[in-house]
């Protein structure tokens, strides 16, 4: 289909972008790779009055070391992120989840920040960001905000990003030594969205799990931390049994949707199986 008409602005700096969004008002949208927004425009499911294109702003694409964390620029492409040596070393869970996003063509255009801002519960990166306690940095004419991932996703396709805010970067605390990670994605075809996904990072010490971060994709309107799993597994010895018992707690407190790709009941079941697998894989890396 064909999008409805919209104004188009292509600022050269973050300052210009922030100003453009402030001027355009409530019905403006920032666009970067366009891999999520363009289909919505074409299907006329979204009708923004104006698009502010962030593609020309070089500083938004940078990935850099920030001491105890990484700063991933909002418009760094998936392709860039998954191959970046810093990301692979300090945030391997992000690299692993990113490698499962759609297909190479999408990964060359789609952006890290864009997929967080889109806040699709079936997206792979929100759960990974949540598991790692990422912090979103956003700027507007009113100043800069730091939004923890746990507060960023508020509802189906809705984040706390204000209409006049530009996401500039995402701060990912580094994982230290001893961590293993895994992103377990369950989908029917290579390019399809996750029916359920599990983002998992665990720290092993002396044959036991000392620390665990587990977040779930598509088990509700927003990505969710599997807190019951984390609580259960922390301090337990690494064994098939403990991972299985931990997995059984995966769906606690979730409200998975029913759609064409799976019922709520099936997703609940999948979460338990996939969480067990993700823990096992992360702990044996």
């Amino acid at each position: 289909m064909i999008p409805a008409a919209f104004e188009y602005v292509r600022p050269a700096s973050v300052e210009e972008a922030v100003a453009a969004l402030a001027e355009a008002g409530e019905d403006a949208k920032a666009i970067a790779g366009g891999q999520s927004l363009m289909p919505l425009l074409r299907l006329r499911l979204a009708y923004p009055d104006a698009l502010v294109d962030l593609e020309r702003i070089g500083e938004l694409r940078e990935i850099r070391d920030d001491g105890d964390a990484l700063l991933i620029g909002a418009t760094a492409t998936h392709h860039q992120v998954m191959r970046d040596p810093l990301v692979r070393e300090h945030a391997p869970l992000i690299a692993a989840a990113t490698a499962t996003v759609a297909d190479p063509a999408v990964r060359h255009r789609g952006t890290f920040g864009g997929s967080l801002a889109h806040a699709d519960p079936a997206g792979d990166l929100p759960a990974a960001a949540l598991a790692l306690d990422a912090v979103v940095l956003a700027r507007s004419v009113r100043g800069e905000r730091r939004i923890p991932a746990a507060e960023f996703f508020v509802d189906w396709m809705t984040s706390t990003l204000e209409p006049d805010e530009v996401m500039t970067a995402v701060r990912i605390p580094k994982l230290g030594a001893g961590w293993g990670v895994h992103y377990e994605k369950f989908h029917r075809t290579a390019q399809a969205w996750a029916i359920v996904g599990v983002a998992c990072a665990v720290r092993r010490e002396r044959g036991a799990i000392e620390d665990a971060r587990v977040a779930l994709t598509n088990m509700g309107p927003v990505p969710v931390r599997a807190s019951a799993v984390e609580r259960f597994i922390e301090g337990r010895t690494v064994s098939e049994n403990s991972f299985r018992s931990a997995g059984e707690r995966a769906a606690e407190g979730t409200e998975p949707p029913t759609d064409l790709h799976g019922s709520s009941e099936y997703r609940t079941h999948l979460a338990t199986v996939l969480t067990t697998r993700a823990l096992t894989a992360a702990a044996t890396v």
Partner: protein
Amino acid sequence: MTAAPEAGAPEVGAPRRRSEDARLVTGRTRWTDNMQPAGTLHVAFLRSPQAHARIVRADAERARERPGVVAAFTGADLADEQGSLPCAWLVTDDIKHPDHPPMAVDEVRYAGEPVACVVARDRYAAFDALEEIDVDYEPLAPVVDMDAAVEDGSPLVHEGLGTNKSYTWVFENGDLDAALRDAPVVLERRYVQQRLIPTAMEPRSVLCVPEGDEFTLYSATQIPHILRLMLATVTGIPEHRLRVVAPDVGGGFGSKLQVYGEEVIALLLARRLGRPVKWTESRSEGNMAVHHGRDQIQRLTLAADEDGRIRGLKVDLLADMGAYLMLVTPGIPILGAFMFNGIYKMDAYSFTCTGVFTTKTPTDAYRGAGRPEATYAIERLMDELAAELDLDPIEVRRRNWIAKEEFPYETVAGLTYDSGNYEAATERALALFEYDKLRAEQADRNERRDPVRLGIGVSTFTEMCGIAPSRVLGSLSYGAGGWEHASVRILPSGKVEVVTGSSAHGQGHETAWAQIAADRLGVPFEDVRVLHGDTAIAPKGMDTYGSRSLAVGGVALYAACDKVVDKARSIAAHLLEAAEQDLEFTGGRFGVRGVAGEGATLQEVALAAFAAHDLPDGLEPSLDSDATFDPDNFSFPHGTHLCAAEVDTETGMVRLRSYVAVDDVGKVVNPLIVEGQVHGGLAQGIAQALYEEAVYDAEGNLTTTTMADYLLPSAADLPEFTTDRTETPATSNPLGVKGVGEAGTIASTPAVVNAIVDALRPFGVSDVPMPCTPERVWRALRGERGERGGEGAEPGAGGGLGSAGGAR
């Protein structure tokens, strides 16, 4: 890799790379949507958001006032000139055949049916203006379930018909009651062939250019010749004032074997406005409005003896027509009537098919068209029979199939299979597959209670193609014949133009036809140009579908080449001052038997014919020849396909581990093209087994309008295919060819589902409805039946792009 054959070696049989691919793959070619004559106007269609409703009021006035808009019409505005879309296959005398206006006038009967259109200076303006068209609908009851639709008291799709049954078609042979009576084994099964959306890579597109009272219509169609005749019939524009061009066309799979309302409307708009008009569909529009495929409920009864020999088969079908009968809608399930018996011998057979109207997109031909549905049924039943009798599925087939020495064989369905060798194909497939080794692994996994089980699926299929003998089509009430035409023109320089009535849309005719002509005429491959797909250039043809191009059109070319050689022989004899019977034609040159050095090449003869200075009295100064071939019989490709599937019993996920396809498509002109057809066919058949399904909700809305919800596999989702061939020539044509366009699709679906069920039999599972989604497999393992995972699903609710817009 592969290249041209050595000089002097035969072209036929050489794995030549396709000469058309460079332009097709890069897109540097004439797709219909690439063409933009000066002044072209763009059309957009407003489509019904409701499955079934009365149109109370439709008003396009405000749309006409929008900037850039040239005209806007509702169905009522064009009611007097738009006519009714044709159905050319009225399978019974008393078939119910409702009118089908290209744009709905009084009532809409499926979501996505066109109700109005806008013509504007660009696509954007046309699309924007659609939102200004007011249509008031009075909802009527949707009819979405075939079983319910045929019950008394069901809401009706067409009130005036008094029933939702379009027709009932029956074929019977042998005494089925006797076969069933006291049969030691009687299997009763109900299988559902889900509705599929054809999804060609190139969406539909049509451009109509008026010149005075003549029109050139470019369309992404498989059938320029049939379309021309039908457009003339529907609109009253004389056939000789219409030229239809199918430029390069990016796939069809049957979906472009159609006369679409959008094509008729484009022609009418070009006539009204006197300017070129173009319409190209979007993917989501196409999912709703391209005709769909399959959609049958099959009730099957198989009677067999204790040793596994089949006594008889009863087939009772409900076939979903959708809301209207389109070009060959009613005939599609009837093509399957002759295939439910597969490669097996039996005494009695009964086939009954009822065509049912529903408030859904009309169905029609989709790759295989009737034969995949039939093959699925019989091949699933053979596995069920093997399980019932605790026989190996290969063995139960062996006990029933037609032995190689029994050909030609008249089947219980009344066809004569001319040739085949099921033993050879099966032996080869078993060896390539390492059947015994995989069976051992399967037993081991079962023994260990491995959470991932292995299943082996068998499909020993045949199909009827090379459509078709005109007399047979006539006896089935089809509205046309099944011949094909070819012309060969020898240019003065000796170069060759081949004109074929078979219109390629991705099959590689330009390469294969040149290979045939090069061999028959003894000219280099590069000297042959193949022309097709334009009624002004290739005026006569029956087009491309039903795996007919080579087995009918290729044979016409073969015959036309022979006529050229015959004509050339007379001239050569005159030039060489020899008797015709003393000439021999080899390697493109006439030589005189016993006289070394004497001879004339075809090029020399062609030049002599062109100059015409010195020709025998009474001889036409031309070598050009035409031939029209009408086969005496169908052709019957067959093969043995074996699939190994790993089923994760914890999640229900199916992973295909290996797939062996040994096909017998007769003689092969280009093995590389055959290989490509088999690969693509397998992907499409596997997709029915695992991925694809057009889903309608209870209100009749199509919920799979985007490719996020209508899943298609890519190479990443498919196993490496092991393909091989046995070669049993067809006896029905001089090339010995059978056709390969649909074989892979027909064979693979049951092979995959048989493999899944085989993996799950230790859990008491005997069926998984298609597509075998992980959730359905999981539910089958939990002992649940049912045809749909995610009942009451809200599209898009789970995230992903989804079809969040429904039938927008």
